[in-house]
């Protein structure tokens, strides 16, 4: 009979219960979306911060002037053109004297122009691979955890354009000091999720393909493809060794060993950029002053700065040993991102709590209205011998069922919403975190039970004599 009454109340008073379900659903969907984004993006950034990641970016002096511009263009365009576009536009500082030449080379960005770049361009815009070992020979050499060079080109698989980057996966270096060093991207990008073995420089025909690139090109593990500099042109054939997920823009790229990419781009022995991961001492006043203007330091201060593993002193030492480069610290960006992230997370939690409080208030109104409306029915049940507890259980069951239906719908909507936020704000899918489910169940319980409390109090206090005789 209990279930008959429950079913009757639920099915024949659909609108009221739908309102409750809708309210809970709204709250839960917002909370799910926000928590989902929070957990996932938090994880991604934290992983990057925890696994040292790169905190120094080494670029050629010539490229450094325009590198920010390139980066903007890279990120603005879906098929990042940092490779050959960078190569051809590398001429622009020179080309500024010759506007027609510069515009011609940048419009025909793909490949041909780059091959005609002069020796000065090459010297200004590339770093010789053979010099890179020196990074491991600076004063703070032992603080250099990993480093890897990159050479990117804008390749074509059939008609589809895709960025191809050459790098060291696991390079073995024998230093003049007699030290043996293993370094490369595998250690640098330790948070990448691989579905197979990591890249290996001894198998130059095997590549790592980002998840999105693999989708775009229809590639799976083991499939072969030919990549060329021109659509449909002749090129090099690679085998997909592993598909990876980085959670960032690298997902749209293909990573190969350096040598074949150098060959394809006709840039033997050259790299465009090096990422370095170094253990550093947190910045202090001295480090900040040194970073702004090393000349302002006294001799003693300068010595102290140079002999401390500040990120700026390590950058300085790399520039010392590799005169053709500029070194930029990128940790500070990451750190402030971390700080912003923490604040954003706090804000999300606050917003979630506020959302829940609002839901609870709305539920409280709905349930109270519901109980008031049903006061005669409740009085009647009491007159027929029902206990306050029995009626409370009935009313609560109704509300909980409506709430959980709403909560489930809200959860699904919230998942969709979090994907939308992830894609539009962070440019990547948000992983579905299962932790959100128990949190959601708890939220629904809390919100609907707290929301029902005032109504239950009224229900228990209600005297049948006050409602049954229609005064």
């Amino acid at each position, binding site marked *: 009979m*209990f279930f008959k*009454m429950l079913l009757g109340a639920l099915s*024949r008073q659909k609108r009221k219960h739908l309102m409750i379900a809708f309210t809970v659903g709204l709250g839960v969907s917002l909370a799910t979306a926000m928590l989902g984004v929070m957990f996932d993006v938090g994880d991604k950034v934290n992983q990057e911060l925890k696994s040292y990641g790169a905190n120094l970016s080494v670029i050629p002096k010539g490229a450094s002037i325009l590198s920010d511009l390139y980066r903007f263009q890279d990120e603005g365009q879906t098929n990042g053109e940092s490779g050959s576009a960078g190569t051809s536009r590398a001429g622009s500082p020179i080309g500024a004297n010759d506007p027609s030449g510069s515009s011609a080379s940048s419009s025909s960005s793909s490949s041909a122009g780059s091959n005609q770049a002069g020796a000065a361009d090459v010297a200004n815009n590339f770093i010789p691979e053979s010099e890179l070992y020196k990074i491991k020979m600076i004063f703070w050499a032992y603080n250099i955890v990993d480093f890897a060079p990159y050479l990117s080109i804008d390749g074509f698989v059939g008609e589809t354009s895709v960025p191809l980057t050459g790098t060291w996966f696991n390079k073995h270096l024998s230093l003049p000091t007699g030290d043996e060093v293993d370094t490369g991207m595998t250690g640098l990008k330790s948070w990448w999720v691989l579905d197979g073995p990591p890249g290996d420089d001894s198998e130059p025909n095997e590549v790592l393909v980002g998840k999105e690139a693999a989708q775009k090109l229809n590639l799976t593990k083991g499939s072969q493809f030919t990549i060329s500099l021109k659509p449909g042109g002749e090129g090099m054939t690679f085998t997909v060794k592993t598909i990876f997920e980085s959670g960032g823009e690298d997902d749209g790229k293909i990573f190969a060993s350096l040598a074949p990419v150098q060959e394809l781009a006709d840039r033997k022995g050259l790299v465009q950029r090096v990422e370095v991961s170094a253990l550093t001492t947190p910045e202090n006043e001295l480090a900040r002053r040194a970073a702004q203007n090393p000349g302002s330091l006294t001799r003693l201060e300068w010595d102290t700065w140079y002999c401390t593993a500040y990120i700026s002193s390590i950058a300085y030492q790399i520039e010392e040993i590799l005169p053709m480069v500029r070194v930029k610290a990128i940790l500070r960006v990451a750190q402030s991102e971390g700080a912003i992230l923490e604040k954003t997370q706090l804000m999300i939690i606050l917003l979630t709590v506020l959302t829940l409080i609002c839901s609870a208030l709305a539920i409280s109104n709905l349930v109270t209205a519901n109980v008031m409306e049903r006061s005669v029915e409740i009085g009647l049940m009491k*007159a*027929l011998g029902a206990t306050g507890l029995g009626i409370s259980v009935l009313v609560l069951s109704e509300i909980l069922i409506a709430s959980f239906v709403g909560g489930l719908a809200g959860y699904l909507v919230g998942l969709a919403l979090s994907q939308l936020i992830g894609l539009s704000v962070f440019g990547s899918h948000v992983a579905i975190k299962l932790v959100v489910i128990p949190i959601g169940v708890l939220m629904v319980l809390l919100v609907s039970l707290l929301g029902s409390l005032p109504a239950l109090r009224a229900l228990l206090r209600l005297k049948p*004599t006050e409602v049954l005789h229609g005064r």
Partner: protein
Amino acid sequence: MSQQSSNILEIVDISKIYGPVKALQNVSLYVRPGEWLAIMGPSGSGKTTLMNIIGCLDSPSLGRVVLDGLSLDSLSAAELTTIRRESIGLIFQQFHLISYLTALENVMVAQYYHSLVDEKEALEALEQVGLADRAKHLPRQLSGGEQQRVCIARALINHPKLLLADEPTGNLDETNEGLVMDILHSLHRQGGTIIVVTHSPEVAAHAERTVVLEHGRVASDSKLGAQEKIFDQASQGVEGLEGTKSAKEADSPIVEKAGGIG
């Protein structure tokens, strides 16, 4: 109080006081099993208040009530609920059916809160009030008269010792009033004890005894003829003082055996 056993209800000198309002003042009333009693009186005279007290929905401020040999003095609301569940059937002027349950389910709710649900028995109860074919209808699909008959079926389903009806025909037309009175008559024939509050002399005429309340006091009792005699009754015990009771007397032995209605 040796007569306790022969009265199903004894109300002794009760008052109900709401602040300045004395809804009931020193009311005494004795009802025998199988009796059909009508309570009349102007609006605000305390009829509903009295019914609530008899129906264990409320307690008097002063005085005592004994229902079927059981004193209701100083019982908690929960204990009153138990007694109400076991002994009382309630019918209201506004019907009060649960809107989202069918006629049959509305009857079964009373079974559910009383003891066990028995769909067959509930259906029989509806049959007795002539509504077998309306069992699956929701209250809003039933006419007022039909709704009231569902209420009667619900009130009778647990075989109460006492049926209390507060203006059961107040919202009905004459035809439906007739139908309801027919049901009450057949219940009365089976020995049921009935108390009906009504404004209508026609409805009251169906009862074998009429008590009139005024300003919270018993103004007249057709069984006694005058108010003072109530106290005589209390001291002398109850035995037939009026000629009208020959029919009732014939009924009572059956009731005593049945111990309840229907």
